[in-house]
């Protein structure tokens, strides 16, 4: 094994020898550099592998042959091996990436690069404080040299700001070092463990530590760093983010043993503040490189937290830090490199990236990885971090992390959405030479591999997690195939998967029901996809991701699996929504709300750990005393997905702007995940109180208001899909209400309604998709009279709306009937009446839906329309059959559903006497009702047919219209603003308070962020002052105002 | 004792030179003043039994740095015209 010191010696020899090169030999020089970095990588890599496999023992290199503290020693353990390998590998790839630049730059730049790498290597390995100082200085100067790779005025002044800052920092560091020496008599970190115990010694520790913390670019003393990120060449930006920052953080890690225990959490807090606020400020950043800079700094802050609290995190420390470190390393480097290829800091110009599907995919992967969504390591790391913090009651910390994360998601996905939708630049084609692609591809692959190892490490269930992930991966790999093949494959794999897991969940009705909804829903909603031509690139992997994410929710082994499935589903559906033509903003909203919900849930999981230990929240058996907060957090999270009023504003946009045939999946199927969660907490937690209020009571009201609100909003929609989307809000309100009744009947209603809503909503959306597919418009007032050309779709909608309205004899009535019984038993008359009212309000929009679209006057441009394609109709009719069966034999569904509900839930259950359903209040016989209705209907129909058998078919236009013939269909189709009178009367009910509230939140946060951003004046001197100020404040907080 | 007084005097001169460097009207004077600060520092180093440091400070800190300063100043002054 080559001694690690030779990383340095090889590098230095190269650096020095490069000086001999001539201008004409530049290519050879680059090659030499490449070989040198490769050799450096190999040395550190061999140590890494050796230590990992155990074939090599970690070692200390004693320079000059003297034992420390008499001489400087370099250490090579697992930690250093990882970091040096990162540094050197990165250097190697940077050389490749910069091939064209280096070929034309002078030899000096080559030297500077290699010296930069050496500096970082030594920073990582050395155990001597002063040596650290020296190599920090080397790195600083080399960084300044790299800054001026582009010699424009921006980067020059940024470089100068950096020099000022680093002078101040190194001054502080040097004072600290010399103080330390004067107290303890040596310079080796390993011999300083009791430095802080000596009187005055903690001042030295403080100075050293604060210098390194400042070097790690903590908010808000980091303006210089931001300016560097913004103006440096992207490859250099990536170096700053991917290797400089980790190396400095590692120094902090090295210093931690000499830092008094009581400081740890304060430093951690400072790191967390950086994380939160940097992400917050990044939300207002349009310049890509600066935004990435903010993001890098934020990640650095988070890592600082972890590092400074390594003792707190104990055994999980490595897991957490590696998760953040590696993700940030691969992803941030990748993003910066991509920036270099796109060669623009304008988000709008990034559209060109779409011309390179692989790069675009990697771009997405990087963004997602940084955002901390599964299956990337950050996700698991964040999870573990929150859990550990929760264990230690660090609630404020969790709040900060989650806040920061939501800001992070906000700007990252705003960016992603913009790139997804930005106009492709027609003139400028993206130039992606191989040497620029190779590093990105490699890092992309490495990121995925890392994710794989993280997932592997966590030992997930094979059938319920690993297999789905595998399938999703496969769909990424085969994305080049034609759409119909992939559609077939996905349907087939879902079917086979269903077959495989059936034995696993057989007998567990709950799982069967939800698995059924998700799997069958997934399969059926995919069928219309057969009309798609081309490859439909990017749809199927995410459809698979969504569906399998949902499936993971059904039988999670633990909270993590559940959360992972949840996030995976959110991500998949986000992409599905984003694919819609005008979906940029709605998708962004969806992502934000999803993330908000997910983080609330994460907080809830943390709290749960505190209350109930490491149990899956759905398996808690009943009472969780004092768990009101947990319950509320969970409830909020799930109600976000279920779009309870106030939290619903994402829904209409997201559902309506998604691709038409994807809408059923993201709405009808996906929304049930919220119900699943709510059901679980409702059954698992038992009644809960918060500040003395019964939470169920509040949830009941929320449900009732949601039901009314959703339906009220639906009335005035002219857009077909938005109308159905709002109707989902209403339905969810209904379900939330039913769940919060917390009685056997209530839960039964919720479950029943969940299934039913799934059926009819999917059906309606599909039917709408069929109509839109033919008419090419979503505005209902532009349609009309389509019953003639699309009778089958009409039937589906008719049955759908009868079911939705809960009219007997169809299945919807069962829900309404049970609902009354449950309400009366519970005594929630007012809320119940509100929900009932909402049910009637539903009539308005249902009528509008069916009448505007299918009835009335056929428009001229629709005269030649055909029925919706067969593949659209097929799943719809499968649903119709399901509804019919349920209408006649509701017990088929209701009886199994009733077995899910645990016995401890209070209230009376539904009794069955043959076909007669009974409660102590009422009774109802679906079969009999159906029979009576059918007979009646048939008799009257027969009578009519008999009587008007010779009825003459006339044109729709052939009407008496105040003695005038109408001349255009539009004038006789009174569809626009149909319920004007209603609006006049009750329009005040739909004052968009929620929208106003959220707009206000967004406006205010933007304004605050802008205000805060002005802290970074751009003046290097001010930045230097920030550094001192930061140290000053840190000192005051650490010492409590006294002299240490 | 003499040494101490000498040191104090030198220290005072150093500080006054440092202040001069910050307050001098012309940059040239400021640079010179800071060179003198270094120079005096090297004398103090000698007094503090650090001849190696004294040499280095004199040659590099005081000498070379000042020269580099003047090169740059010269260039800027010339461009200024």
């Amino acid at each position: 094994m080559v001694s690690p010191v030779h990383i340095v010696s090889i590098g230095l020899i190269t650096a020095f020898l490069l000086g001999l090169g001539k201008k004409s030999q530049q290519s050879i020089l680059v090659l030499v550099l490449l070989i040198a970095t490769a050799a450096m990588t190999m040395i550190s890599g061999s140590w890494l592998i050796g230590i990992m496999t155990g074939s090599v023992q970690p070692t200390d290199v004693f320079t000059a042959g003297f034992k420390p503290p008499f001489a400087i020693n370099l250490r090579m353990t697992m930690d250093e091996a990882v970091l040096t390998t990162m540094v050197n590998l990165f250097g190697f790839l940077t050389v490749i990436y910069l091939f064209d630049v280096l070929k034309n730059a002078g030899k000096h730049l080559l030297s500077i690069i290699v010296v930069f790498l050496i500096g970082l290597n030594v920073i990582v390995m050395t155990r001597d404080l002063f040596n650290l100082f020296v190599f920090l200085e080397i790195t600083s100067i080399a960084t300044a040299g790299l800054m001026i790779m582009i010699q424009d005025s921006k980067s020059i002044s940024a470089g100068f700001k950096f020099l000022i800052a680093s002078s101040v920092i190194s001054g502080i560091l040097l004072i600290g070092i010399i103080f330390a020496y004067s107290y303890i008599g040596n310079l080796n970190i390993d011999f300083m463990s009791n430095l802080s115990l000596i009187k005055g010694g903690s001042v030295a520790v403080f100075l050293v530590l604060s210098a390194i913390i400042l070097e790690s670019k903590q908010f808000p003393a980091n303006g210089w760093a931001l300016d560097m990120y913004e103006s440096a060449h992207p490859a250099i930006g990536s170096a700053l983010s991917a290797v400089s920052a980790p190396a400095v953080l590692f120094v902090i890690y090295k210093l931690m043993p000499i830092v008094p225990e009581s400081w740890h959490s304060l430093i951690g807090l400072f790191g967390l503040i950086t994380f939160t606020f940097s992400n917050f400020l990044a939300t207002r950043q349009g310049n890509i490189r600066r935004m990435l800079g903010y993001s890098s700094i934020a990640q650095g802050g988070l890592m600082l937290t972890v590092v400074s609290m390594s003792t707190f995190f104990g055994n999980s420390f490595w897991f957490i830090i590696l998760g953040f470190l590696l993700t940030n390393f691969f992803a941030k480097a990748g993003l910066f490199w991509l920036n270099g290829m796109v060669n623009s800091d304008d988000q709008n110009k990034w559209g060109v990236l779409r011309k390179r599907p692989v790069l675009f995919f990697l771009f997405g992967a990087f963004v997602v990885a940084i955002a901390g969504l599964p299956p990337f390591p950050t996700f698991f790391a964040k999870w573990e971090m929150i859990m550990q913090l929760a264990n230690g009651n660090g609630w404020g910390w969790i709040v900060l992390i989650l806040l920061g994360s939501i800001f992070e998601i906000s700007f990252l996905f705003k960016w992603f959405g913009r790139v997804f939708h930005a106009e492709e630049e027609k003139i400028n084609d993206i130039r992606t030479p191989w040497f620029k692609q190779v590093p990105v591809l490699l890092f992309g692959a490495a990121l995925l591999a890392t994710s794989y190892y993280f997932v592997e490490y966590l030992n997930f269930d094979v059938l319920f997690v690993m297999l789905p992930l595998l399938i999703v991966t496969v769909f990424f790999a085969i994305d080049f195939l034609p759409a119909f093949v992939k559609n077939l494959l996905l349907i087939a794999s879902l079917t086979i998967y269903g077959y495989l897991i059936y034995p696993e969940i057989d007998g567990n009705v709950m799982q069967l029901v939800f698995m059924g909804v998700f799997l069958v829903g997934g399969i059926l909603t995919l069928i219309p996809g057969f009309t798609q031509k081309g490859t439909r690139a990017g749809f199927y992997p995410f459809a698979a991701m969504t569906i399998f994410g949902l499936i993971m929710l059904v039988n999670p082994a633990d909270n993590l699996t559940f959360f992972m499935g949840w996030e995976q589903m959110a991500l998949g559906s986000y992409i599905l929504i984003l694919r819609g033509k005008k979906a940029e903003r709605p998708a962004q909203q969806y992502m934000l709300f999803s993330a908000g919900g997910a983080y609330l849930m994460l907080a809830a999981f943390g709290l749960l750990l505190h209350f109930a230990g490491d149990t899956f929240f759905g398996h808690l058996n009943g009472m969780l005393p004092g768990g009101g907060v947990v319950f509320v957090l969970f409830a909020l999270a799930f109600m976000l997905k279920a779009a309870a009023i106030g939290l619903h504003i994402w829904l209409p946009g997201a559902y309506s702007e998604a691709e038409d045939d994807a809408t059923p999946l993201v709405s009808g199927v996906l929304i049930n995940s919220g119900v699943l969660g709510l059901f679980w907490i409702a059954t698992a937690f038992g009644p809960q109180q918060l500040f003395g209020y019964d939470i169920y009571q509040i949830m009941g009201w929320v449900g009732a208001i949601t039901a009314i609100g959703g339906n009220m909003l639906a009335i005035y929609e002219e857009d077909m899909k938005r109308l159905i989307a709002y109707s989902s809000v209403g339905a969810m309100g209904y379900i939330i209400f039913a769940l919060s009744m917390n009685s056997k009947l209530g839960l039964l209603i919720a479950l029943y309604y969940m299934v039913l809503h799934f059926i009819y909503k999917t059906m309606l959306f599909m039917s709408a998709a069929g109509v839109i597919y033919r008419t090419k418009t979503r505005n209902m007032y532009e349609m009309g009279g389509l019953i003639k050309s699309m009778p089958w779709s009409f039937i589906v909608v008719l049955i759908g709306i009868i079911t939705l309205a809960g009219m007997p004899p169809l299945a919807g009535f069962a829900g309404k009937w049970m609902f009354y019984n449950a309400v009366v038993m519970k005594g929630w008359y007012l809320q119940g009446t509100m929900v009932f009212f909402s049910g009637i309000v539903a009539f308005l929009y249902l009528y509008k839906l069916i009448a505007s679209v299918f009835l009335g006057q056929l428009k001229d441009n629709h005269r030649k329309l055909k029925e919706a394609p067969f593949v659209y109709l097929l799943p719809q009719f499968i649903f119709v059959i399901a509804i019919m069966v349920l209408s006649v034999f509701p017990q088929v569904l209701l009886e199994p559903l009733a077995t899910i509900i645990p016995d401890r839930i209070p209230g009376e259950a539904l009794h069955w006497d043959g076909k007669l359903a009974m409660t102590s209040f009422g009774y109802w016989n679906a079969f009999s009702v159906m029979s009576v209705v059918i007979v009646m209907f048939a008799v009257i129909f027969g009578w009519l047919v008999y009587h008007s058998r010779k009825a003459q078919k006339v044109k729709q236009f052939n009407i008496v219209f105040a003695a005038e013939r109408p001349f255009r269909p539009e004038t006789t189709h009174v569809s626009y603003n149909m319920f004007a009178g209603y609006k006049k009367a009750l329009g005040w009910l739909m004052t968009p308070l929620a929208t106003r509230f959220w707009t206000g939140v967004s406006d205010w946060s933007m304004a605050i962020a802008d205000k805060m951003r002005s802290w970074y004046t751009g003046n290097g001197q001010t930045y230097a002052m920030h550094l001192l100020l930061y140290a000053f404040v840190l000192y005051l907080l650490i010492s409590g105002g006294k002299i240490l | 004792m003499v040494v101490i007084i000498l040191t104090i005097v030198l220290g005072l001169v150093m500080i006054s030179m440092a202040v001069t460097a910050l307050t001098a009207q012309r940059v040239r004077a400021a640079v010179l003043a800071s060179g003198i600060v270094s120079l005096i520092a090297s004398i103090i180093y000698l007094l503090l039994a650090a001849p190696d440091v004294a040499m280095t400070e004199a040659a590099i800190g005081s000498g070379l740095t000042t020269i580099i300063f003047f090169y740059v100043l010269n260039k800027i002054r010339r461009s200024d015209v």
Partner: protein
Amino acid sequence: MEYLTLQNIGLVTGFLLILIGLYGALTQKNILRIIVAFTIFDAGLNLVIVALSYIKGRVAPIIDQTTGITNLSEKFVDPVPQALVLTSIVIGVGVTGVMLTFALRMFKTRQSLDINDFKETKW
């Protein structure tokens, strides 16, 4: 009077230089003056380090006829800070040189040396 040692004088002078240097670096508007301030800052730092190495009544750590070769640890001042200062001085000149070249180039782009004129990247 007991505080009036060579070491303490050195330390106080050094500290004052550090503060003066920092003050200058933070308040001067001319880039060159900022750099000058930093050299003063550096000089202060070095002085502090050397002062710390001093022990009253001892000699420079060079073995010659006067010192002999025994019991040197009771005759010499501390050599370590001196070695550190040497490094620090060299680093100082490197950094100063780099900063000055930056200043030169900045002057070239803007024809100005006012630090306030170089704020094209901010927020």
